[in-house]
Each structure stands twice: as structure tokens, then as C-alpha cells.
């Protein structure tokens, strides 16, 4: 009843091709954005439930937003272009360390040329973006094998990127500005002259990034390039016969995906962790991101958010439920149970809906269209 598009006539091609062609979707999106940009800061300002303490912001919403962004990046590669990658953690790391280097000043001595490359410390926004760019460049390099290697073989091959960069950031002291321990700390977050410090400011910063990139991604995937990606995903040989260049399509997917993942990595390091080491971007992070896109729904921007919420929040919730209910069980039992329940739920979801939450959502929309009088 509420969700019925009867009477919404598209009178121009532009209207027909809009990102959100259904009016109810637009309204819902605007309400959601309003709530995210205005409602949550208000709640936090007046310390209302559930934002009474900054736990919700700092430990749930900020990591959720950043990981959603990363999941969008991974989804472009895995969900839209069909190239399975287990190296997303490495691209987050590249984004984080490059942004750190650009933020603290790049200095490359080239003694054999008698010169040196020196870039003064860049403002934060520029360094985060350059971090994404570096990640995109490396992404293209590691995407080249995808022209020859396919499927799960490619997935395992991308692990080469994962382990190689784990090692690079551990071993090459230049990346950590010769910190004795190899752990680096993020600089203060000055965005366009404004110091982002309190949790709510950090939240808004992440939210702005995520909103912009989600819109860009949504636009990309419905455009020419997105259709090329999907053609490659569905059957690359057939796509090639139709005149799509696999080289171009696959490498752009790698570039765009790595860029977004790199930006997410920079945010993860700068905004969430504050100080980090390569272990923060290890193989577990890559698997976590892959889970997010598969549980959320391959080939769906909305699915990236749903998957990120599920995979991030579920273990945190499960971990706290026994204590909140006052059930006296030890932390190791809880932790084991969290493992078991998470693993079992993942298997269960893969069985009942292999296409993820996004598919469930579209089924729900179909039903809502007919509700309350299904035929």
C-alpha cells in the first residue's frame, strides 16, 4: 500500500534512468540521510538513548561506516566484476601507510642522481585521497594477473598481495618514518582548517566520505563502465566477443575498488585506530570484508552496508549479551560461543539465501508492493 509505484509516470529518459526511480525510495533515503546527518548528532548532543555514551559512536558507528566503505570497494571488484580478491586488507594498508607518509612529508633521497624528492606534509584530505590513489595504482598492478588467472586461483593469487604488503610495511622502515617499533600514530585530523576531534565530528567525517563514495559507486555501476564490469562477471568470454575489452574493464574495476578500499584503510587507521601496525590489516581483515559483501549481497551497494553491519555488529552484540543479561559465563566460553554462532549463522544465511541480504531486501520490496492485498 505504502510502497506502491502506481501513478509515478516517467516522462523523460532522465527520470527513467534516475538512481532511485521510485519516489518512496527517494523519500526513505532522504529520511535516512537526515537521520544520519542531523538526528544522530542531535541524539549524541543531548546524550539520549542509544547515544548516552560515546561507545555507540566510537565502537559501532564509526567502524561500521568505514568498513561499509571498504565493503563497497570490495563489492565493486568481487560483486560487480566477479574478480575474487583476498587481498583487500593489503589495499587498506597501502591507503593507510601512503596517507600517513603524505601527511607527514615524503622524502626520497636519490643520492645516485645527486638529487632528492621532497614533498612537504600535505593536508589531511589530500593525503587520504593520495592514499587511495596509491592503492589504486598498486591495485592495477596486482590486477594484471587477473587477465590470465580466474576464479579461486585468482583469489589465492591475490593473497600474494596480502602477504607481500604485510611484509613491506613491517620491513621497510621508510614507511613508518623509522619508528623503532614499526608502529605509527596518526596525526591530528585537520580537515580544511577544522580540527576533527570529538567522536561526533569523527562520525560526521566518516559519514561524509561514505555518502559521497556510495553515491559515486552507485552511479558508476549503473553507467557504461558498470555494465562492462557486470558483463565480464557474468561471462568474460562472451563479453569479450561482444566487444568489451577485458583489460580495460578488469583493470578499471581493480583501480576503482582499490581506490575506495585504500581511502577506507586511511580512515580506519586515522579515525578509528589512531595508531596501527601491519597486523591491523592482515588476512583476517580481507576475509572479513569478503564476508561482508557475500552476506550482504554480491553486486549491491545497499548489500555492502547490510553486510558490514551484520559481520561487524553481530559478534560485538553476541559478546555482550550474556553479560548484559547477567548470565555468569566466563569470557572464553562467550568468545567460543561467538565463534560458533557467527560461523553457524554465516553457513545458515549462505544456505537460505546465497545472494545475501540485498536479495532478501528486494524480496521484501516485492511483497511490500502487494501488501496488504497479495494475490
Amino acid at each position: 500500500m505504502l510502497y506502491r509505484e502506481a501513478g509515478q509516470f516517467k516522462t523523460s529518459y532522465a527520470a527513467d534512468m534516475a538512481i532511485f526511480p521510485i519516489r518512496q525510495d527517494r523519500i526513505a533515503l532522504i529520511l535516512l540521510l537526515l537521520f544520519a546527518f542531523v538526528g544522530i548528532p542531535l541524539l549524541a548532543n543531548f546524550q539520549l538513548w542509544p547515544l548516552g555514551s560515546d561507545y555507540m559512536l566510537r565502537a559501532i558507528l564509526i567502524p561500521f561506516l568505514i568498513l561499509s566503505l571498504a565493503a563497497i570497494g570490495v563489492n565493486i571488484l568481487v560483486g560487480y566484476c566477479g574478480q575474487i580478491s583476498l587481498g583487500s586488507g593489503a589495499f587498506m594498508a597501502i591507503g593507510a601507510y601512503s596517507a600517513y607518509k603524505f601527511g607527514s612529508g615524503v622524502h626520497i633521497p636519490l643520492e645516485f642522481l645527486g638529487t632528492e624528492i621532497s614533498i612537504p606534509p600535505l593536508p589531511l584530505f589530500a593525503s587520504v585521497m593520495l592514499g587511495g590513489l596509491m592503492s589504486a595504482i598498486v591495485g592495477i598492478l596486482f590486477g594484471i594477473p587477473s587477465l590470465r588467472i580466474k576464479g579461486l586461483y585468482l583469489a589465492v593469487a591475490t593473497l600474494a598481495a596480502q602477504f607481500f604488503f604485510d611484509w613491506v610495511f613491517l620491513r621497510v622502515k621508510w614507511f613508518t618514518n623509522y619508528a623503532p617499533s614499526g608502529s605509527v600514530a596518526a596525526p591530528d585530523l585537520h580537515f580544511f582548517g577544522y580540527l576533527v576531534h570529538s567522536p561526533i565530528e569523527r562520525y560526521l567525517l566518516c559519514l561524509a566520505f561514505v555518502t559521497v563514495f556510495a553515491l559515486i559507486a552507485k552511479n558508476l555501476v549503473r553507467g557504461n563502465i558498470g555494465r562492462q564490469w557486470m558483463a565480464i562477471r557474468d561471462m568474460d568470454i562472451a563479453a569479450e566477443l561482444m566487444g568489451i575489452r577485458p583489460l580495460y574493464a578488469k583493470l578499471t574495476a581493480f583501480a576503482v575498488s582499490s581506490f575506495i578500499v585504500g581511502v577506507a584503510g586511511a580512515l580506519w587507521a586515522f579515525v578509528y585506530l589512531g595508531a596501527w601496525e601491519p597486523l591491523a590489516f592482515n588476512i583476517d581483515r580481507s576475509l572479513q570484508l569478503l564476508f561482508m559483501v557475500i552476506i550482504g549481497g554480491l553486486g549491491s551497494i545497499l548489500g555492502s552496508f547490510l553486510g558490514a553491519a551484520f559481520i561487524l555488529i553481530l559478534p560485538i552484540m553476541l559478546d555482550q549479551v550474556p553479560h548484559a543479561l547477567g548470565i555468569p559465563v566466563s569470557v572464553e566460553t562467550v568468545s567460543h560461543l561467538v565463534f560458533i554462532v557467527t560461523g553457524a549463522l554465516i553457513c545458515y544465511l549462505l544456505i537460505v539465501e546465497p545472494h545475501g541480504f540485498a536479495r532478501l531486501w528486494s524480496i521484501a520490496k516485492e511483497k511490500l508492493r502487494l501488501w496488504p492485498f497479495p494475490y
Partner: protein
Amino acid sequence: MVVFGQFLEVLIGGLLAGVLYSLVALGFVLIFKASGVFNFAQGAMVLLAGLALVRSLDFMVARGIPTWAAIVLALMFAAVVMAITAALIQKFVLGPLVNQDGLSLFMATIGITFVIEGAGQMIFGSDVYPLRLFPTDAWFVLGGIFDGGLLVSKIDVWGGLIAGALVAVLAIFFQRTKTGRALRAVADDHAAAESVGIPITWIWFVVWLVAGLVALTAATVWGTKLGVQFSIVFLALKALPVLIIGGFTSVPGAIVGGLIVGAGEKIAEVYLGQLIGGGIEYWFAYVLALAVLLVRPQGLFGERIIERI
């Protein structure tokens, strides 16, 4: 001569270490061959088998059962645990997921990994449990030719012997037994196999059981080497490059891949690592695998990938 001796020592050590990776990789190959599932849970299965083995062994030894009998009983107990695991996985996860694409199946096995890690530690404990089934010291051979002799670690030799025996047993199983032949039929085309009357769910259970027993074998060696503890699950990551180099579908490939990875990464670590900073062996195996894939996208021994439109 000294330099050559040292090189030989690294080479031998590497080859033998590689065979130990093959022990883990074999389990992957069996399951991929028969059901197209890329089983990430193999490392967790090694952990589970090892925990079941060492905990029941300790339990029985503490109650005065003679060691040899306790070892036999513990091995049987661990085998039963692996059989139950195989049955549960087949019934509740992979049975319902039949005909899904490879990625979903792969992710499901990661889900299984979580469950096994949690349940295994919850039931058997998360401490480190020493296991001593094989000698862990070393021989120093050819002392006459090389100063100080060439180091050959005994447990690695044991591992090599066991891996060899395992491959032989598997070969006989695949070639000579009815179940083995049915298994190969299922691997070729499970729909066709089912239509000629092969009980496909039973066959898949057998595959997971065999993979579980391979995991148990790996656990005896690795458990002795490391002590049975959680870190054993990381072996899965060491086995993956072995798998790619050998090809996902080839049992001999897993052994050859292991030899290449083991020798390659040890030589790289000892000789190249000194130049560019140590710790390169973790990624070196993967880069090696990537290089092999660029030449042969199906691995050295894998079946050719034929694509049709």
C-alpha cells in the same frame, strides 16, 4: 665445500618442510577434487584432530593405560571425532549448498572454520598440549665430507615417510576400491554419477572423512612439531601456495608443490632474506605461486580449464 654443504642443508631442510605442508594440502585436494569445494577449514580440521588426539591420549595415560594402547585408542577416538565432523558438515552445510557457486562454498567453509575453532577450543581447551609421537632431534649425516655434517631433522623425515605412505594409500584407494572409483566418477560429473546410481551424499561424506583422516595424520606430525595449539590453523595459509602450484585437483601435485614451495622459500629466506631483510618466506611462496599461475593458470598438475560459452 662449506658453502655447498650449507646450501645442501637448506635445500634438504626446505624439501622436507615442504612435504609437511603437503600433508595439509592433501586434504584440500581431496575435497576439491570430489566436490569442487575449496575447503578453507582444512587447517581448523587439523587443529580439531590434534586436540581430540592429544586430549584423549593425556586422559588415558593419566589413568594408567599403557602408552601404546592409549595411542591406538586415542587415534581411534580422534578418527571418530573427524567422522562425526564430516557427517555434520555434509548433512548441515554442504548438502544444502549443493550446486552453489565456488565462492559461496568457499565462504561456507570459512564459516565452518569458525565453528570448528570455537567448538574445538570449547570442548578440548585452548591451552598448548605437548604431543610426542615422533623424535624431534636431528641426524648429522655425511660428517666426513662436510664439516659438522648435514643437518636432517628426524621429524621431517618421519613426515616425509608418512606423506609418501599416505599418497600410496590414497592412490590404492582411488584406483582399486569401489568407493574410490565412485569417488572419481563423482569428481568428474556429480550429476552423471548420481544418475548411474552412485550414492552421492555418501560419497561426499566419505571424501570429508578421508580429508579428516588426512588432517589427523597431519596433526600427528605437526602436533609433535609445534605442540597442539590454536596456531595450527595458520598452517592452512602455508598450504595454499602449495596447492596452487600443484594444481587444485592433483594428489601428486600437492607433493611436488610442497617440495617446490619448501625448497624455494627456505633458500629465498636464507640467501635472499639476508640481502633485503628477513621474513620474506611468507610472501615468497605466494609470489612463486603467482608466477607459476601466470604460466599455467591451472597449476602444474591441475586439469586443464576448458571454457565454453
